[in-house]
């Protein structure tokens, strides 16, 4: 029983990381109806940046904050420079561009930081929280960070004028432009936010999965599964989906399919949800007028 509980809780910790990355995916999806295949690699690159800063002696939380700011700027620049020219291109073109970004980030990270696996220290003290024996301190901390990110994102979109403007721009770009919202910049900010949120996911994942250029590939896949399961146009659904996928993945890995083929759990979830209920658990069903 305690083994099962242990699996569930460490699943929740990984699920929190999937939830954050899924949130980043949803943020771009809501504005552009596209899924950013490079989201994971962008997060991986941010994590390397954080590692470099910590390695040169910067305190963890300072590096954490600076990485988030840099990722935000980087995400905005990518939208402005790379993505903007393809604003009205067909889906296939944009998917190809995303794959290009994925390959570029992966190889630049490998070139700059080498392909050898690095350890990434957890910021949380090595003492178990409240004497619980089910989770390591990093797992508890990662869950806490997840909730903090969710709360911040909620507050941003609910209570700030910029958040309102972004929601408006995503929902109805034409009318938003008429009332004076700069829709193009809202998109760029959305990309920046997604990159920043992804960076948090990367930095929380790195102590668990270790740092290497391919570390986010599996995590991105689970985040896809979480986003699809929760409904890719609903941030809260995606967060819940991320947690669910984390737990499912851990339990299936421990008791059903074995740890070596855990990734196929994500494949089964993605294909299963898309076939049975394409809008996900909490998503809206889209009806297109012909």
């Amino acid at each position: 029983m305690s083994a099962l509980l242990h699996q569930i809780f460490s699943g929740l910790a990984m699920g929190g990381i999937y939830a954050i990355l899924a949130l980043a995916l949803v943020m771009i999806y809501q504005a552009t109806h596209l899924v950013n295949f490079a989201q994971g690699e962008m997060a991986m690159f941010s994590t390397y940046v954080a590692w470099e800063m910590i390695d040169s002696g910067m305190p963890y939380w300072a590096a954490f904050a600076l990485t988030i700011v840099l990722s935000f700027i980087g995400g905005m620049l990518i939208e402005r420079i790379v993505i903007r020219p393809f604003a009205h291109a067909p889906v296939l073109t944009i998917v190809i561009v995303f794959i290009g970004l994925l390959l570029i980030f992966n190889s630049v990270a490998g070139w700059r930081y080498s392909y050898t696996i690095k350890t990434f220290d957890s910021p949380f003290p090595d003492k178990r929280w409240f004497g619980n024996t089910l989770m390591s301190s990093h797992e508890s901390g990662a869950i806490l960070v997840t909730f903090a990110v969710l709360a911040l994102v909620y507050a941003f979109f609910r209570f700030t004028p910029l958040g309102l403007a972004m929601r408006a721009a995503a929902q109805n770009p034409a009318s938003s432009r008429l009332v004076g919202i700069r829709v193009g910049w809202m998109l760029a900010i959305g990309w920046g936010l997604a990159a920043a949120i992804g960076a948090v996911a990367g930095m929380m994942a790195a102590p668990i999965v270790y740092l290497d250029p391919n570390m986010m590939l599996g995590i991105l896949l689970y985040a896809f599964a979480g986003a699809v399961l929760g409904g890719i146009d609903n941030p809260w659904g995606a967060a819940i989906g991320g947690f669910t996928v984390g737990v499912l993945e851990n339990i299936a890995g421990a008791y059903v399919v074995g740890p070596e083929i855990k990734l196929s759990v994500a494949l089964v979830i993605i294909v299963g949800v898309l076939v049975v209920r394409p809008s996900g658990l909490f998503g809206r069903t889209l009806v297109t007028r012909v």
Partner: protein
Amino acid sequence: MTLANDTPTALSAAAIAQAGSRRLQRLAMGVFCIFALGLPFVASGYHLFQFAQVLIYAIALLGLNILTGYNGQISLGHGAFYAIGGYAMAILATKFDVPYWATIPVSGLICFVAGFLFGLPALRLGGLYLALATFALAVATPQLLNYRGFDAWTGGSQGLQLGKPHAPFALPLTSDQWLYFLCLVCAALMFWAAANLVRGRIGRAIIAIRDHPIAAETMGINISFYKAMCFGVSALYAGVAGALGSIVVGFISPDSFGLFLSLSFLVGIVVGGLASIWGVLFGALFIEFVPNYADQLSDLFGESAKALPGAIYGILLIGLMYLMPTGVAGVIRTAPGLLSRLFSRPKRV
């Protein structure tokens, strides 16, 4: 009025241009055939192996291009079908003692069924979701091939070792030369079939589905049937390529079927030209030789040369989408017209 006056001359000009490009096309075909047939007698064994690999990639790319280029269904996971074909061949040859040449069509058929089955749920997915599902397939493939439950069949992470076949009927050919010709014959058959498929009624139907599904359906095209068939045929091509791949390499293991392979295929059709039959040859040359040359640069760059193919692929994918979204084939198609417009004096009317 001007329109009426212009039309005949414009028409005849177009006809002349078309006839010219026909002749050019035939010439290019002839040169290509001589090159392809003569190559085994001048190239060394290793180079021959590389060109056999080019032909194999070309077959796989052809399949992906039928699906993605002509039918508009995005697949980021064709490496999975290539893997199924390769493993089907290896398992048939090692466990059932099927002669290697007979495994090629069987592997193709197995992949057709696998692709058709994967294509059935894929019918309900729009472009983006299909990309997601196939991406997941590509990422999960090496793990699935490594699965301990299949060890008895697949050899696990050790893979399967195959012998190199020799030329039959006492033909005076080395093993490498024979394998090259085998690939050449298969590629020629597959290209011929694809060219006919795309040019005919079915081809027009699948292009119509890509361009305007609703209009296509009102014209009486059975969209689900064609889309699933397209997926199946495309997987069949990947499967034949995979089978040939394991025959030529003589060894198969899960590591060679990662996400990078699937993404290489995507790079291949983008470089060669989406929705083009002959373009895939350029794409295949590209994805065979770029990683190879990058390897040779490792003396210069040390370990970071490993990053080079990925970087080149990534930059090219984005750059090509900016500058020449029709790939090499598109440039070749439009270049004669552009050149003649550049060099011919503008006519006064």
